[in-house]
């Protein structure tokens, strides 16, 4: 099975949020970037399917900050080919434009399946997988937590609210938004990533910025971004496990939850 995995870098707000002077976006130049965590699950699912089907995995991305490391990492983990679409301009590319640019490249490839993370922390104008599918005209599913290969296609397990899950069989090529996988995203050492980067291996493809699907952009204008008013913070108990355990038992006892 030939699989394309769409990867994206997102601002790392772990150490705190920084907002630009206009108040309309994160201060992206002041933040580090990490790979969208859900894309790592998508890559893991692709690598599992590769092993199962003797397949081929291509990772593709735009020229996001820190993407080279992410692509080399994917190669070190077992992806067969990495493609970077360059020339599309910097800054915050919305999901609609991202999907359009990717679709115009994907359209020229041979593939059975496209995987990407179900969502990203900053996809204000909707999630990439369904936008890609709608643009390319493929069957699709979001919030996929398991994939089985069948003779004619594959069966995806989709999660809904209230504990409902459903399995659907999709004809290929199809697009899946991956929410989780049967295995934790695998680990690879920095040494292996460095080795992968020494082999070169990222194919740069100049994109003319043309979107292969009929969408110029999201049609949204951001007026302002802001942090929500400080929500109630927990009262912190001691960090020592024994003292914390005593405090927690006290709380449960007060409420009559234990004798």
């Amino acid at each position, binding site marked *: 099975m030939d699989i394309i995995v769409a990867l994206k870098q997102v601002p790392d707000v772990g150490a705190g949020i920084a907002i630009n002077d206009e108040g309309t976006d994160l201060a992206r130049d002041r933040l580090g970037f990490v790979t969208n965590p859900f894309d790592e699950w998508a890559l893991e699912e692709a690598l599992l399917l590769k092993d199962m089907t003797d397949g081929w995995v291509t990772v593709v991305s735009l020229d996001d900050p820190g993407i080279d490391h992410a692509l080399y990492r994917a190669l070190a983990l077992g992806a067969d080919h990495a493609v970077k679409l360059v020339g599309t301009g910097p800054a915050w590319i919305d999901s609609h434009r991202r999907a359009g640019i990717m679709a115009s490249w994907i359209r020229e490839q041979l593939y059975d399946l496209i995987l990407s993370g179900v969502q990203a922390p900053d996809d204000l104008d909707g*999630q990439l997988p369904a936008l890609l599918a709608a643009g390319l005209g493929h069957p699709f599913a979001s919030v996929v937590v398991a994939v089985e290969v069948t003779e004619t296609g594959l069966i995806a397990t989709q999660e809904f609210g209230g504990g409902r899950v459903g399995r*659907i069989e999709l004809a290929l090529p199809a697009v899946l938004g991956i929410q989780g996988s049967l295995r934790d995203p695998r680990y690879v050492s920095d040494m292996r990533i460095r080795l992968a980067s020494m082999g070169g291996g990222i194919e740069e493809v100049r994109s003319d910025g043309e979107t292969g699907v009929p969408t110029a952009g999201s*049609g949204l204008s951001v007026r302002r971004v802001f942090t929500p008013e400080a929500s109630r913070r927990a009262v912190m108990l001691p960090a020592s496990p024994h003292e914390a*355990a005593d405090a927690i038992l006290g709380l449960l006892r007060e409420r009559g939850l234990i004798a």
Partner: protein
Amino acid sequence: MNHDVLVLAEAAGDSFIDPTFELLGRARDLATAWGGRVLALVLGPSPDPSMLNADVVLTVSHPKLDAYTPEAHARAAQHVVAELDPKLVLLANTTEGMDLGAALSLWCQRPLVAYAVDVRAEDDAIVATSQLFGGRLLAEVALEGDRGICAVVGGSFPPARVPTRPPVVEVVAPPVSLDGVTTVPRGMPPGEDEDIDITKAPMLVAIGRGLKSQDNVAVAQALAEALGASLSGTSQVCDLGWLPRTRHVGKSGVKVRPRAYLSFGISGAPEHLEGIRESELIIACNTDEAAPIFDAAQYGTTADAIELLRALTSRVQQR
């Protein structure tokens, strides 16, 4: 020009999901402001439509809509939206909402806002506030043009009142495009046997990926047993097979309201918090003091989850 607000109703069993009623409530405010009608769209078999506080309930029936598939439901939704051209389409930011919102946006050429927690009318304009970065940032956005789609996070609006008179039900003929749908529903995953119902448990011990490995689930199970509590967890823990899916709490799992929710190694993603907000008491353990779970919990500790689980278990057992 048409000023209607269309709500995509999502059926679940013999009713609709909570967000459907919440969207209908806000749709009424918006339709009143714009001078349009509230339309509810039900794709496939419909629970009793008289529950829906709308002016018109539109139903579409077709064998391909009997069970949910993104492909068939997206095509049917596109057909209705293109035909009726409502000013605004509201859907829940659920799995279905993610599937259909994007397809409608591209195929009907309308702007789409995801993760909305507020949608309002400013004269003729549609303005939304959305959650980004798991709720750590809010964005106020205006939709360009006079047509739009908003996917709204559950719990953002109070539910609509129960309708005093039943809505008009209109049957919409299914589009021919449904005949070309290739996706086939294959039912529920095998092997999900009857399990305990965690929504009924008075106390829950809940675990996340911070437990690090499946072997540690037994450590949490020991505490649950000592307390007479049930074990539950995040979706990722269930995806990894550490717990059966029936134990999965949150937006795509179940909503719980225990008297106490003890959480270990859970980050507190908004999708998880949606399922625990109504708990009477939340106590959270996470080594990262900035973890969002501490915004939902009344009490917290940065102790190591395994050490704390062991310390608690031995104390409870020694009582």
